[in-house]
């Protein structure tokens, strides 16, 4: 299952909730104005007499004023201005509400956007408790999260509609976004700033867990990769380290420490492959390794020429990276 909630009108946290509150002002006022203008236009058409090309023009208005109509138009403009002021006030209030999200005891994450995947580093005052994962954030329900956004190559944009509005990841200018998930669940997000070839397949999943579940998940993420238990998985690990895999990917607890592609220390625990391109199953992992271009044309990972029994061993190893 690679779904997840991604709807502006289905908020799962405080920030998105505040914006829905604003939407509930914007929508009725705008609908009201639209209907009023259409009724006025309809009435104007209905009541005005019909004419033809030859009807003599009525030029009286050039020489005399039309006070009645003028009054109506002035009132209409005044009412429009008043409504705009109301909307401006509500907008400013919402802005303040967003800025006033309580941030005590916040979880700090540094999220880096690459073409076309996300790297997340969970910060901790104790460096040994920091860990790195990719394309998937787990956050505890009810605890605020401050995400520092780093653009590594081109501009990307962080957008998880059910949790918070957008924030761009701009090379050379770090930005931050803060949000709080108030309901447990899977929230889908996607890069929202056009970032090149595979902009379409750059999803980000935010999984809001109960605080205890989150703590367990974080502890597991901090641990290095488990020592493979079967011979086949061990052979898979050796293949991983001997082949080109280790030139881009990192697996903690092994000598693979490259940072050009998603960290695979706990790859089997994630929902998707290729930033939402594929569901993360054993067979999909094998198909992805053989030819990632088939699922995400343009991705930086090249196709692998690998014998079937080697692929099976590699797959067994990756499956063990829970």
């Amino acid at each position, binding site marked *: 299952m690679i779904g997840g909630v991604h709807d502006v009108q289905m908020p799962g946290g405080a920030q998105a909730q505040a914006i829905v509150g604003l939407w509930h002002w914007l929508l009725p006022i705008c609908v009201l104005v639209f209907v009023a203008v259409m009724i006025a236009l309809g009435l104007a058409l209905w009541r005005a007499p019909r004419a033809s090309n030859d009807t003599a*023009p009525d030029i009286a208005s050039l020489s005399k004023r039309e006070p009645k109509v003028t009054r109506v*138009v002035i009132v209409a403009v005044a009412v429009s201005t008043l409504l705009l002021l109301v909307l401006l006030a509500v907008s400013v209030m919402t802005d303040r509400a967003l800025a006033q999200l309580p941030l005590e005891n916040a979880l700090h994450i540094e999220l880096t956007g690459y073409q076309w995947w996300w790297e997340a580093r969970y910060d901790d005052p104790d460096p040994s408790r920091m860990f790195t994962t990719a394309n998937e954030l787990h956050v505890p329900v009810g605890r605020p999260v401050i995400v520092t956004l780093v653009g590594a190559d081109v501009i990307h944009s962080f957008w998880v509609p059910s949790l918070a509005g957008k924030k761009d990841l701009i090379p050379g200018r770090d*930005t931050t976004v803060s949000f709080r998930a108030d309901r447990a669940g899977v929230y889908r997000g996607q890069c929202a700033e056009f970032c090149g070839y595979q902009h379409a397949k750059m999803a980000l999943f935010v999984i809001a867990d109960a605080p205890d579940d989150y703590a367990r998940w974080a502890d597991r993420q901090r641990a290095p990769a488990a020592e493979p238990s079967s011979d086949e998985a061990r052979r898979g690990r050796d293949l991983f380290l001997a082949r080109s895999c280790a030139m881009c990917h990192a697996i903690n607890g092994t000598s693979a420490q490259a940072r050009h592609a998603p960290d695979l220390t706990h790859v089997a625990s994630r929902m998707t492959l290729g930033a939402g391109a594929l569901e993360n199953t054993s067979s999909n992992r094998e198909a992805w390794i053989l030819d990632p271009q088939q699922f995400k044309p343009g991705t930086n990972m090249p196709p692998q020429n690998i014998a079937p029994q080697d692929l099976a061993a590699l797959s067994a190893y990756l499956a063990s990276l829970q």
Partner: protein
Amino acid sequence: MSAGSLSGLGSVASTQALRERARAIVGRGETMLDGAGFGSQAERALQQAWRDEPGLLGFLKTTDHKRIGRRFVCTAFVFFVAAGILAAVMRMQLAFPDNHIVGPDLYNQLFTMHGTTMMFIFAVPIMQGMAVYLVPLLVGTRNTAFPRMTACAYWLFLFGALSLWTGFALNAGADAGWFAYVPLAGPQYGVGKREDIWNNLINLSEAMGLMVAVDLLTVILKMRAPGMSLRRMPIFVWASLVTSLMIIFAMPSVMLAANLAQFDRTFGTHFFNPAEGGDVLIWQHLFWFFGHPEVYFIFLPGLAFVSSIIPTFARRPMFGHDAVVLSLIATGFLSFGLWVHHMFATNLPEVGKGFFTAMSLTIAIPTAVQIFCWIATLWTGRINLRTPLLFVLGFFFILVLGGLTGIMVGSVPFDLQVHDSYFVVAHLHYVLLGGAVFPLFGAFFYWFPKFTGRMLDEHLGRWQFWLFFVGFNVAFFPMHLLGLAGMPRRIYTYGAETGWGTLNLVATIGAAVIALSVLLFIVNVVHAWFKGPRADDNPWNASSLEWATPSPPPAFNFVALPVVASREPLWTREEDEPTHVSGLSAQTREGLVTTVLDAVPDVRYSYPDPSIWPFIAAITVVVWLFWSNMTETGMFYGLIPPAIAFVAWYWPTRKETVEQLLLERKP
């Protein structure tokens, strides 16, 4: 007829003798003055003086604003259809989840080409083209102020457009979006020549825009018919004035940005490279400082079409003429205070963003004033419900809806949710198609008789309108919902699990209906062009000056330049007022310059003759740009041919010198 030798000219002492000599060379007798009616000798003289050479050379040399304006409109419309076809391909790709009609590479080119073409090759040029055609007629003069510049602007625009599309045909279509954000469009991530070609197009199309703007500005301020004071100026002319001023302030910004980007690409400068102290956000500021006003210089002419059509078909002068004019001016100013609302998701200071929210809401007020004035005009008028008015009514529905979603996205917090989502795609199409294309079709139906001397078919027009109106709403309304459901823009595909499939399919069906409606319009135009009923001078019985001359107008527009005594000159002819100017030479291309505020006759003005040099100059400029993309040295050596062409352009000819002498003016 033309000159033997002028060698003795310099040594002739007496002016009288000089004039005699000149007259002998040109071979004319008495100086013929204009001011008489059609069928007179003066008309024949005017025809002779304003004649274009026949054949290809005449086609390339012409400086007739009507021919050039028509070219602008036709060329831009061809590209409108082409960019529409790209949109249709995109809609087919998005009709179903995980569709495989086009891949990411082509899709990225498709939406970049669609946006770039619609904004730079369709919307701005067609609006300027309409103004080039209409403004000299509306203010009652013979041509634009700088006719050779008008011609050159068209050629620059044409070559820029062709080069962009040639690139696309050769798989070098720009693919970084119509906004070409760096670093994606920079040297490191925008490899190949795709973005070079895009930057060239920006240079060429913006040069075109600036040249036409300067030209129109001069016509409007200095060449109005005597008596047409600013307060009597038609609203369309006011809109052209405001738009031209906006273009002069906005377009240099994007040209600067494109050239800085091109320096980064060609010479390895680091204006936009954060690793070397550059800043990627500067691009966005420069781009949107142009990009937001651009929306309004597409939209203001649209509003002005509406203000031209409504009084004619409500059979009364515009209600609140002054309020509408002031609203146009206010919109022009305010539109420069909105650009940051395209950048709400960047890390600019929050307080600053609040200012741009306030401005984005404020600009709704002048538009509201105009909408209420139009409704009041219809309310108090007598309605002649023909196709042009039908398009205006469609405009009301769509523009008001798009304007209201514009107010929504003007609010920072809400925009953070829908920014770069399909909600914005819906909004911008409601505003731009509603605000510009619906009035434009109305304007086509309204002025087609003037352009061609033929009437478009009403019946087909109504079919076209209803198909367009229904198709448009079916195509674009669902996009609001898609945006709220989290669908980002510029994605070439989406998974079935997102649930976006159904609404996308509906949108695609709507797009097909739009295509059908545009096809009907083309059929209507082709049919009318050859077989449509003849139009008389003023088929709609309208009030402005373009209807005071035959349909289509002769090359010199008016046999006698009109004199204006009211805001609605053709509805309020008084017996005892002068109706026309006389005393300008009919044998040469002469016009009248009037004062800025009150249009009091000031001086006589000689229009330049047709010339091949604007065409050649445009070619040399295009060659220079592409040469400079290929090698750094091309940037410098490539400047030599344009320098030669521009000198030749301004080199006075013997015929011109002699004519100036005949008219007692120093050459």
